[in-house]
């Protein structure tokens, strides 16, 4: 508890220090924030290992007071937030962000720490709103430099506050049925099934919006590119997790599970998000937008796990539920690690080249060698291939789904194979996505002058990114390291034995299955070494002689002949043409004298977000129409405005007179 309080205190100190005018303290705020991250990570880890605590500070908030408690589940998310904060803060040292931005970041971290430690509805909503407000300020930070930022911030503000409203409605309804708003009292509440359904669906909508789940994901690919370089890792690595935390806390803990159909919805939303997210990530050409859609994909995978866990728990298959939830939480940890790494690398690229457009990047391998290597690690982890860390959690998830067949009747027999298929397709597309991001963005030749002029990031930025990469590698080779924390968090909500055991080799206790990431990595390394030495042995028999690359006789190879991100994704776009419905327009201008002589051909292609087009644009258009019609009500006449009040008052009085 003291550690947790220290972390919050350090965050506030950092915010104050950042506001000081002296130049000497420009680094201090980030250093203090990093320190706060370390302390928070330790506090969270201690909570997962059984040193939980609870506190009630009645004077800090009106009405209910500030009620805090850190149990293993909250501790896990606190630890993740702390770890991400350390990396992001180190990466942000010397980033040259505005003073206000640097002051808000620690407050954002404090809000992120507050949410998983909240132990009452009012405290939770307070933390949630603080998190929404501070993150909104950070998203809008660069609105003067780029016009798109203001629009992104507007989208984010609307979505996050709609989410807050539904969460608030759900939790307040729950608190109204209980004896108080403390979480302990909510757990003891006796509610009718219909009320529980309403509460779950309302909170699910809000939490899904925060986690970037389809169809509530629209803010995510906008907000991440808009946010400053070292803020997107915090948002993607720490903030979206809070959506998952909310679903687990409310659905599995406060409401103690529910009917099977709740979890079908969660599972279906997860599968839809995973597929939709990865498809759009594969199509994206903006590096941060790509990573944003990839967040939607990974949160979708996590929700598949959470949904499966709830499904099994409702079905009475406790050990399987625990395994699925362990897989989901492990994926949260892994996603936080590799997404922090990737966003930091993307931020470095943006700082070095001034662009995020993959079609204009390339050739960074020689100019930014460290960033390239680190991004490669992140891309490997994100594409869920061994020996990356994403592989372990997805494998666990698949195991829990595959072994559900005998246990869970007809419904499970239909649902689970579909979910397995969705995960498999997602994993395959993720590989294509990150091959594209890495290959087009970092290898080959530079496609624009901006990419040619790129220079390696400052040492602190590389340090922060390397720290995240080290975490990724550690998680990839030794996931057993975080196993005790995960087990504690899972048993907090699904009290069965340890679902996964083992040190080097992970053994599943409910079903037969085991995996040893270290051995897989060693075998892979051995195989690669063997193939390389074989190739070298064969190749060195011939005499080497330098020659020009074959270029079909079309002159020297230039950057224009390379694959771009768009062309790399084109085959996939063809395969999924029905799902994506891409738009293209060809604009031919001919010479005046002859229709056969073309002066200029312009080709434009775009992959629009269909959910946005079908779901949001009609609503927005209707709102705009309504607004412009409502303007007629206000024509500037004072008498008219006064008469509105008069008519309303007399109208209410007439109604009162009639009904009384």
């Amino acid at each position, binding site marked *: 508890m003291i550690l947790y309080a220290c972390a919050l205190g350090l965050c506030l100190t950092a915010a104050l220090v950042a506001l000081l005018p002296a130049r000497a303290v420009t680094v201090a705020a980030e250093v203090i924030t990093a320190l706060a991250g370390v302390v928070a990570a330790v506090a969270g880890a201690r909570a997962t290992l059984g040193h939980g605590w609870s506190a009630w500070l009645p004077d800090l908030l009106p009405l209910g007071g500030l009620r805090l408690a850190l149990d293993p589940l909250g501790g896990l998310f606190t630890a993740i937030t702390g770890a991400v904060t350390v990396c992001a803060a180190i990466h942000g040292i010397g980033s040259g962000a505005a003073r206000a931005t640097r002051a808000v970041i620690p407050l954002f971290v404090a809000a992120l720490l507050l949410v998983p430690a909240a132990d009452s509805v009012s405290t939770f909503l307070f933390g949630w709103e603080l998190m929404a407000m501070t993150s909104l300020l950070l998203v809008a930070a660069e609105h003067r430099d780029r016009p798109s930022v203001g629009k992104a911030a507007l989208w984010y503000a609307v979505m996050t506050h709609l989410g807050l409203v539904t969460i608030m409605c759900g939790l307040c309804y729950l608190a109204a049925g209980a004896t108080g708003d403390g979480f302990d009292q909510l757990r003891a509440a006796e509610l009718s099934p219909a009320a529980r359904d309403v509460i779950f669906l309302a909170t699910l909508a809000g939490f899904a919006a925060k986690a970037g789940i389809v169809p509530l994901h629209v803010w995510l690919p906008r907000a991440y590119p808009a946010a400053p370089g070292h803020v997107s890792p915090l948002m993607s690595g720490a903030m979206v997790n809070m959506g998952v935390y909310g679903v687990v806390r409310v659905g599995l803990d406060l409401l103690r599970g529910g009917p099977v159909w709740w979890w079908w919805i969660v599972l279906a939303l997860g599968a839809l998000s995973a597929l939709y997210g990865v498809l759009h990530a594969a199509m994206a050409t903006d590096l941060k937008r790509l990573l944003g859609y990839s967040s939607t994909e990974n949160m979708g995978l996590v929700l598949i796990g959470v949904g499966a866990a709830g499904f099994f728990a409702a079905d009475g298959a406790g050990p399987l539920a625990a395994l699925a939830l362990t897989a989901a939480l492990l994926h949260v940890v892994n996603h936080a690690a590799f997404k922090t790494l990737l966003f930091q690398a993307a931020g470095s690229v943006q700082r070095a080249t001034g662009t995020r457009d993959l079609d204009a990047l390339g050739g960074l391998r020689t100019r930014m060698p460290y960033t390239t290597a680190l991004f490669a690690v992140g891309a490997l982890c994100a594409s869920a291939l061994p020996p990356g860390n994403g592989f372990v959690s997805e494998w666990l998830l698949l195991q829990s789904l595959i072994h559900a067949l005998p246990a869970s009747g007809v419904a499970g027999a239909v649902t689970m194979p579909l979910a397995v298929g969705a995960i498999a397709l997602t994993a395959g597309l993720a590989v294509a996505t990150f091959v594209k991001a890495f290959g087009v963005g970092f290898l080959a030749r530079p496609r624009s002058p901006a990419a040619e002029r790129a220079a390696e990031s400052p040492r602190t930025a590389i340090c922060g990114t390397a720290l995240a990469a080290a975490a990724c590698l550690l998680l990839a080779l030794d996931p057993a390291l975080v196993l005790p924390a995960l087990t504690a968090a899972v048993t907090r909500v699904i009290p069965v034995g340890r679902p996964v055991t083992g040190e080097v080799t992970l053994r599943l206790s409910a079903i037969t299955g085991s995996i040893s990431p270290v051995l897989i990595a060693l075998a892979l390394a051995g195989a690669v070494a063997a193939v390389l030495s074989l190739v070298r042995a064969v190749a060195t028999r011939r005499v080497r002689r330098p020659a020009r690359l074959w270029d079909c006789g079309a002159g020297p190879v230039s950057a224009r002949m390379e694959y771009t991100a768009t062309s790399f994704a084109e085959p996939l776009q063809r395969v999924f043409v029905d799902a994506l419905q891409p738009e293209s327009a060809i604009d031919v201008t001919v010479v005046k004298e002859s229709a056969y002589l073309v002066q200029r051909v312009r080709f434009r292609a775009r992959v629009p977000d269909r959910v946005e087009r079908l779901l949001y644009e009609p609503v927005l258009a209707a709102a705009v129409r309504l607004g412009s019609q409502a303007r007629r009500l*206000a*024509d*500037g*006449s*004072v*008498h008219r405005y*006064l*008469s509105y*009040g*008069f008519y309303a*008052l*007399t109208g209410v*009085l*007439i109604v*009162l*007179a009639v009904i*009384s």
Partner: protein
Amino acid sequence: MTDPVYVQALDLACGAFLLTGVLVLWRRDLAAIIWLFGLQGVALGALIAVRGLHEADVELTVLGLGVGLLRAVLLPCLMRRALAAGDEGREARPHVSVAASLLVTAVLTMLAYAVSQPLVRLAPTPATQAVPIALTVLLVGFFVLVTRRRALSQVVGFLLMDNAITAAAFLTTTGVPLVVELGVSLDVLLAVLALQVLTTRMRAAFGGTDLDELRELHD
């Protein structure tokens, strides 16, 4: 004060209160409107003082005198000064004609009586039975605000509403604390001063105080 006398005096004050309020709608001469408003202030002061005398409450009686002074002397004085500064003696053609206004007032009175029945039923005393009158004057004040064009009539409409609220407060309770009444009265004084400044400004900018000129300001 004996009970029959008290009831008669209270009804007289309330009747005067209502009548002056309605007559404001009838007259178009601004000076007459101000005069009527002053009379209503007297009626309001008398109403409070009568209640104070009946309950032998010195504080309430003094308060009645103070309210009467403020609303019958000070506020009309301020308005007369504003009127003298300009050269508009009469109300411009109102949005609703005088005859129609008086008819509307009749309807509003019935509405007020219908709505305040539950309030009266809570504690049927001579004082609470006069609550519908306060509500009527409130609605009449609002109606003046909506239909009259000159800034000065607007001020009177606003003050009618405030008079009505004060009357309702004193009719339903056994007396508002002095601090609250002082605060409210000061607020009213401030509002009138602000409106006077606004009137002067409007006259300087548009050459008149017809509120419809302000329409040009909207975006």
